[in-house]
């Protein structure tokens, strides 16, 4: 088994482009989501139901991903981010995007992982402690985009 357990920039770029089109641009980022503001947390578990990986994203990226996948207008995504919320229709889509994002982890580690939970965390709510992490910024044409963190628990 490979020692690599977190996705590379190439993994993130390819998956996002495959989902949302070739115009998506991912870059490695120094900073991840600001947890003093609302953010989205996705937890991925192994076959023993233990959380092994997490993916967090700021509301800008969460609303952009959830909206862009079914072409919900960018204005709704932007307004929701400004209001500090993720509307139900975008949340449903985002759940599917984050479900597919399991492949960011399974491609590199070959472990069998599944999305256990996705939640919108309140400002200041602590994210799970991670032993390793890599952060990315993702820009989606016509949408605001934002930053995400992939971490191993």
């Amino acid at each position, binding site marked *: 088994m490979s020692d690599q357990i977190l996705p590379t920039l190439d993994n993130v770029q390819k998956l996002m482009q495959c*989902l949302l089109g070739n115009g998506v641009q991912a870059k490695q980022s120094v900073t991840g989501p600001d947890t003093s503001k609302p953010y989205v947390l996705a937890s991925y578990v192994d076959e023993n139901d233990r959380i092994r990986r997490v993916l967090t994203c700021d509301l800008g990226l969460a609303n952009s991903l959830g909206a862009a*996948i079914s072409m919900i207008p960018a204005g709704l995504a932007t307004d929701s981010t400004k209001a500090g919320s993720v509307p139900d229709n975008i949340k449903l889509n985002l759940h599917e995007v984050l*479900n597919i994002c*399991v*492949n960011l982890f399974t491609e590199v580690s070959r472990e*069998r992982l599944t999305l256990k939970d996705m939640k919108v965390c309140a400002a200041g709510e602590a994210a799970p402690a991670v032993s390793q992490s890599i952060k990315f910024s993702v820009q989606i044409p016509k949408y605001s985009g934002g930053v995400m963190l992939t971490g191993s628990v």
Partner: protein
Amino acid sequence: MKILVVDDSKAMRMIVIRTLKQTAFSGFSAIEANNGAEAIQMIAEHKPDLVLSDWNMPEMKGIDLLKNLRAAGNNIRFGFITSESSPEVRKEAEDNGAAFLVTKPFTPNSFEAAIAPALA
């Protein structure tokens, strides 16, 4: 050709159908179901030529839908479109009579490569 797309995500059903339209199988009509239980009713009613199903869904999972169909003697062509890509899942799909498994996210090319042999 009639294709039944089974996925609990409306967005994903839309993306599957949009991607199918970008393949050589563009001359098809699509019908949709939200889960396995709904799919069984749709199959009885509409008799599609091909079922493209998600793996994890509420009510009835894709693998249970496939097992149910085969147990009832229905040999409809069946493929999975899922974020599950482990060897165990692939084997379970194959052992139960699935023709292919396409991993999400997919491209028109990966769709075509998987579906073409199943329809040959």
